[in-house]
């Protein structure tokens, strides 16, 4: 299950992070060391152990199905790199 240099390029694409060949090799070297440590887990017998997703075993709360959010579009769009007419601007995706 050793992580390859190709894997680094694949996951960088999945994570939408541009990475050049030199940086990928450096990341690969460090990730190999990290996964050598993580792989200690494989030796543990976890047959029948219920996964623990959370600190508290509580049910997710439900609220009434009613509109609670206020319109804060102008406030939030002030933070955006590019907006026009209340819309977020991105490069053209449909020709």
């Amino acid at each position, binding site marked *: *299950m050793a*992580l390859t240099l190709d*894997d*680094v390029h694949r*996951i*960088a694409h*999945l*994570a*939408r*992070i*541009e*990475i050049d060949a030199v940086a990928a090799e450096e*990341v690969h070297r*460090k*990730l190999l*060391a*990290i*996964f*050598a*440590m*993580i*792989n*200690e*887990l*494989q030796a*543990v017998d*976890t047959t029948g*152990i*219920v*996964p*623990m*997703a*959370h*600190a*508290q075993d*509580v049910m*997710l*709360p439900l*609220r009434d199905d009613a509109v609670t959010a206020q319109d*804060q579009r102008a*406030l*939030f769009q*002030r*933070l*955006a*790199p*590019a907006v026009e007419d209340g819309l*977020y601007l*991105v*490069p*053209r*995706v449909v020709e």
Partner: protein
Amino acid sequence: MSELFSGTVAGLSAALRARKLSSVELTETLLRRVENAQAALNAFVTIDREGALAQARAADALLATANPPPLAGVPIAHKDVMMTAGLRTTCSSKMLANFVAPYDAHVVTGLKNAGTVLLGKTNMDEFAMGSSNETSHFGPVRNPWNLDYVPGGSSGGSAASVAARLCPAASGTDTGGSIRQPASLTGICGLKPTYGTCSRYGLIAFASSLDTPGMFARTAEDCGLLLNAMAGHDPRDSTSLDRPREDYTRDLGSTERQPLAGLRIGLPREYFGAGVDPDVAAAIEAALAEYRKLGAITVDIGLPNVKLSVPVYYVIAPAEASSNLSRFDGVRYGHRAAKYTDLLDMYKKSRAEGFGAEVKRRILTGTYVLSHGYYDAYYLKAQQVRRLIADDFTRAYQQCDMIMGPTAPAPAFKIGDKTDDPVQMYLNDIFTIAANLTGAPAISIPVGFDRRGLPIGMQVQSNYFTEARLLNVAHQFQQTTDWHARAPTGYAS
């Protein structure tokens, strides 16, 4: 003069209420200290002089009324992971270098309502990922006890500020030890409450099942005073617990000769073995001797799966981080690359430029463990071992009330010493991570110094929702010792 900046939250609060000093006078004094210390410590990302003085004037007006809020006029600082409405909130990342938060985090509102004055936002590891405060986009924070050493992380700026007497208390967040480890390395108190006690609303998310807001102060009592203002149910965080309000300082104040008579302290074999610095081991032994004098008894316990907490953490935390940090895409907020060819290229370049090396590494680790074909082997496996670790603690608390041991295996290390070896850096958190995996509370308290004069901290852990008792156990130690009152040379006057 020195009582102004060496005062505790409790002491300053009492002096403010008695009108022996004004909040404006106190805030001005501390702002000057913050500004003067900035070149050496780099503890702050943003200093809000104007805002702080306005809040101090408002606090003085409240202090003139019959019923001022509990912490009226007390200056504090927030870790820059906490959203503060109208004030820059960067998470120490280039990605958010110009981000002005549109609303307050729940704990920020709580401390505001309690009357505190916000001096500014403290430096941290980028997106709270780090154990040394060296991954900050704004440069490392330095340890006030020795400027060549790290203050710990990720809440290094908050820890350094409280240690250097720039403010009596500061907020932090703890995902794998990010409050307790820097508290230990800077000689102050740092509390991580039970997960769900303080809302995560308005925290810039790192690993949502582990992120826990908490605080730094110089005494356990002060931690309790802040927790009173920060805790409470918040429907905006689905993991916030709906429990009755409590006064976390209610157990303090016993004046009996043996106030901790009958307290059973568990000493996990795994926390006292090889790999612990001898000066740290000696300081912990001395602290335990003090606890025995206070009436406590010690029992040997085992936490056999705790050694797996680092590998478990480095699956779960990056997995959650890779998901949480996918929101930074250069579209709605944050850094956008100047040049790109199309939408995909814009995402990739914006994220490559906006995130630092450690953050990218963790996103990539998380993406890998969640990717097709690896989920069961890594993520599910880690969640199963997380259960085994939690079960260890459930068994231990049948034999003891508190668990004590070192907070970190060694005192502070030199800046730059571990930056090229992530696994060595991660092992700093070997004793602190388990409390994040279980969600139970833990505090680090100062218990001595090593041969170079660097502080040593002891971690006290207890079962879910026992903060009041935990704080009293720390408080009683501070009634008979003065480690918490020691100030670093250069910041004592």
